[in-house]
């Protein structure tokens, strides 16, 4: 194991091709470029039916009546189901709190809530049948913000709450509250020479994965069901699906289909239960595929947030204290809101040393769309606000914003506001130094001998400027994200590894339930097996529920946790293989007993490089197989009053420098470059690491300048559920993204690696905002920034 802060050295398997540290290519690459890779929406079955969901057209209402008669009478319709048709008493589901009805019961709590489901022989027939279901609503007042949620006469979004948070929240329309108090912020404020306060707003972002929610449920002869599905966590789905169907878990057999992106939006169930219900009801395979409109209603979004911050600093630039209050809107159902609250509060101080803090984070129940997991998970909203505060403080102190951050940067040994020491490298100042040291993109790149290339200017092909009114700005930001599930969660994974001789060659098979959602976990698992077992041939078994849980593909955790599980299982297989070798050949050569033995290139070798045997001869026709759970260090819950506790597993850091050009007359922004420096601990696959960092960076840019789900504050209805109205960055909107990767080993993690997927999504947004402020001189306290915010016409 590597020492903290030094790059990891690999001995076992270092001579084997395609192991860790190499940029091996994706094992699913060919299938994905030829169109043969089977995504969940590509599933097809003889005789299959199409499912359709009828969703509420209003946000908050009592259901007076539902009439399904006309829909059922339509030719081609096989089944229509409502709440009354559910087969068991388990009629709700949820990740942590089971508050989400499978189908609405007496009441709908948000726009687009599922009310009824239909199965028909053509998707258009199913859609038309769903449209013929008559639902009479009696509308109720909508709760849309903290004021309406906690008003004295507020309607409760959920009556009769009995979840484990109700005892410590100040109001039943608050899902969870996490304060953190450390030191004495009021007392420390007296030492401050400058105090900066800010109110910030972070808009609702959509994951906007391209592969729509979809899957195929096939009823089985044993009364069970086989479900082919795109998800982030098979076993979590299974635990929620089986009880609603009234089936034991072993009769709901789940196989991961191709997943077209996730980003948190597939942590919650979508169409899984509905497809199974219709399949079991009709006895036929049922496929459900959301269209994009429905997808906007079919998964939770990133919590919009209001954040109030106060920071103080001495005139020599040292932070004295921080007070903050973060209000996250969780929408109608809890989803991951409690954990998002834990993250927002525990990471609200950012990667800085502040001993005296007074923090509060809450999540509301409201009638807005349900919000839950999205890449960055609570840390994103906080980073946007605390980084704006850092710039304000630096400006007030007359200091350089990067130097000010470096002066207050946390490092290994810093105590978090939760009391948890940071016990692995935290190169915050170094990342800022690196990102600042990168060469700047040239000025006026759009100028050419043939005039201005409008494609490189704000407004682009709309041809709105040839450089007139265009001003450049530069901004910096840095962030901190936790890796893995926190607050005492039993965050384990399972791997089954088998080694045997096939066609005269040693072959390793790796079987996990890890959801490959595009991140490249399958690539990394093969690399780990090659390194640990010294073989070149590795087969990755499809992910399913025939092996133990891998936990979720979220929280930047899969390479750490399932990668750790694969490494651990490989090590156990290696031990068994060596035992077989010692038994078979130990008497022929003393090195079997005395030397440190390695597996390299299909052979057993000593650490001196002497070959003792071919693996083929050791194994013969024996297969060695191990299935084993693996856990990282345990964490603790945060104290509900003080927020103290060793709640996190590992932290991940990234810094960005944004360069923007703004057409100040029209309020149009062109991001010219987004440079990133990130510590990844150990880059198991450098090509994939950079791909993750660049992808995360652009999701952060999206919420800075264009992406936002707009909810009507009077009706709580979603106004832009389409890719026409919800804007995603295109390749023309996107800047170059130079990446500087630092590899400082975390001695607690497999290979010293650090989870990387989310950190770049944090600092990207505030860096872009800082650059726009730098260009325009405007305060800009909300994201995304739209033209009207830059032209004063909002």
């Amino acid at each position: 194991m590597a020492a903290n802060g030094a790059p990891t050295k690999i001995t076992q398997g270092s001579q084997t091709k395609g192991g860790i540290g190499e940029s091996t290519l994706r094992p699913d690459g060919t299938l994905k470029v030829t169109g043969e890779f089977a995504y969940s929406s590509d599933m097809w079955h003889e005789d299959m039916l199409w499912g359709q969901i009828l969703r509420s057209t209003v946000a908050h209402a009592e259901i007076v009546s539902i009439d399904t008669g006309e829909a059922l009478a339509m030719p081609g319709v096989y089944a229509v189901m409502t709440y009354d048709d559910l087969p068991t008493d388990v009629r709700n589901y949820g990740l942590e709190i089971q508050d989400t009805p499978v189908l609405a019961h007496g009441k709908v709590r948000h726009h687009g809530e599922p009310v009824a489901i239909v199965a028909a022989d053509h998707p258009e027939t199913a859609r038309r049948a769903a449209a013929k279901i008559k639902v009479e609503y009696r509308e109720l007042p909508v709760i849309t913000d903290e004021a309406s949620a906690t008003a004295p006469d507020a309607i409760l979004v959920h009556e009769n709450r009995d979840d484990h948070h109700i005892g410590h929240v100040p109001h039943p329309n608050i899902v969870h509250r996490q304060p953190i108090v450390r030191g004495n912020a009021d007392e420390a404020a007296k030492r401050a020479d400058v105090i900066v306060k800010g109110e910030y707003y972070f808009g609702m972002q959509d994951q906007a994965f391209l592969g729509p929610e979809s899957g195929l449920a096939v009823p089985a002869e044993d009364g069970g069901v086989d479900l082919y599905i795109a998800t982030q966590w098979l076993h979590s789905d299974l635990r929620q699906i089986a009880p609603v169907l009234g089936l034991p878990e072993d009769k709901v057999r789940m196989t991961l289909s191709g997943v077209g992106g996730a980003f948190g939006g597939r942590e919650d169930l979508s169409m899984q239960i509905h497809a199974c219900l219709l399949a079991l009801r009709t006895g036929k395979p049922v496929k459900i595929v959301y269209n994009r409109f429905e997808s906007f209603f079919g998964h939770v979004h990133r919590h919009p947030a209001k954040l109030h911050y106060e920071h103080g600093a001495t005139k020599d630039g040292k932070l004295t204290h921080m007070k903050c209050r973060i209000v996250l809107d969780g929408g109608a159902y809890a989803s991951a809101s409690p954990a998002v609250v834990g993250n927002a509060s525990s990471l609200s101080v950012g990667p800085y040393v502040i001993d005296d803090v007074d923090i509060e984070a809450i999540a509301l129940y409201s009638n807005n769309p349900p919000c839950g997991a999205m890449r960055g998970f609570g840390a994103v909203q906080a980073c946007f606000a605390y980084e704006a505060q850092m710039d304000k403080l630096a400006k007030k102190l007359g200091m350089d914003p990067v130097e000010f951050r470096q002066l207050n940067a946390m490092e290994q040994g810093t105590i978090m506001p939760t009391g948890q020491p940071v016990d692995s490298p935290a190169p915050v100042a170094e990342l800022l130094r690196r990102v600042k040291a990168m060469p700047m993109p040239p000025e006026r790149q759009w100028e050419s001998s043939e005039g201005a290339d409008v494609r490189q200017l704000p407004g682009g092909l709309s041809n709105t400027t040839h450089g007139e009114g265009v001003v450049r700005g530069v901004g910096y930001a840095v962030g901190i994200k936790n890796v893995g599930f926190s607050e005492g969660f039993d965050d384990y994974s399972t791997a089954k590894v088998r080694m045997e001789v096939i066609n005269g060659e040693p072959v390793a098979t790796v079987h996990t339930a890890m959801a490959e959602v595009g991140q490249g976990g399958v690539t990394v698992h093969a690399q780990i097996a090659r390194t640990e077992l010294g073989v070149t041939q590795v087969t990755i078994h499809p992910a399913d529920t025939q092996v133990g849980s891998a936990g979720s593909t979220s929280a930047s955790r899969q390479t750490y946790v399932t990668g750790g599980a694969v490494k651990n299982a490989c090590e156990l297989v290696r031990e068994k293989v060596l035992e077989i070798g010692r038994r078979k050949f130990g008497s022929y050569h003393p090195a079997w007993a005395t030397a440190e033995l390695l597996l390299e290139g299909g052979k057993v070798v000593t650490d001196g490089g002497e070959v003792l045997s071919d693996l083929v001869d050791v194994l013969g026709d024996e297969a060695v197989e191990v299935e084993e759970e693996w856990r990282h260090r345990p964490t603790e819950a945060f104290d509900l009053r003080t927020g103290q506790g060793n709640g996190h597993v590992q932290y991940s850091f990234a810094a960005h420098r944004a360069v923007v050009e703004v057409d100040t007359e029209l309020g149009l922004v062109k991001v010219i470059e987004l440079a990133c420096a990130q510590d990844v601990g150990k880059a198991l696959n450098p090509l994939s690491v950079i791909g993750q960092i660049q992808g995360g960076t652009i999701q952060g840019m999206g919420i800075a300048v264009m992406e936002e789900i707009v909810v009507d504050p009077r009706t709580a209805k979603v106004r832009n559920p389409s890719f026409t109205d919800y804007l995603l960055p295109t390749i023309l909107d996107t800047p170059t993204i130079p990446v500087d990767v630092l590899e400082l080993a975390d001695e607690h993690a497999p290979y010293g690696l650090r989870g990387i997927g989310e950190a770049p999504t944090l600092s990207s947004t505030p860096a872009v905002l800082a650059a726009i402020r730098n260009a325009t001189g405007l305060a800009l306290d909300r994201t995304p920034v739209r033209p009207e915010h830059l032209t004063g016409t909002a």
Partner: protein
Amino acid sequence: MRVNFTVNGRPQEADDVWEGESLLYVLRERLGLPGSKNACEQGECGSCTVRLDGVPVCSCLVAAGQAQGREVVTVEGLADFAKQRACGTGSCGGTSLDEAKRWEADGTDSQTGEGTELAPIQQAFIDAGAVQCGFCTPGLLVAADEMLERNPNPTDADIREALSGNLCRCTGYEKIMDAVRLAAARQSEGV
């Protein structure tokens, strides 16, 4: 209704097509060609891009009936299409020396191009790391291949303009840029 058209060089007939069905639906659900993807079904994301008589179109916005008697190329036919194009320009005489020099054996577990004939743009997407979840990939490949056919030496701004109708949510587009540059470079070296 019945629709007859050519897909990837083969005549196809689809029966019982409802008038409202898109070309995308017929390809995916009636002809067993699910490579073209259904990400937005309103012409915003480009995941369903195919060539209709050579022109890149969002197949979700083409009514199936409009394809009657016309030629469609999908991602499934891209390798053949590129090969025939190369033959047309007189360069289909087996493996080029340059290609042979670049060849490198990978582990047989790794399905990274070996054993399958791919269009140069497909191979470049694999090699450059331009594929993550892969859902945008088929549409991007069809669009990028068409752009390189028109413009073999594109500038970065040309690439960005040509691919601006194709959304990708995973990569941040940098490795897609790398892949198209790589394909263009190999194209100009190799032929």
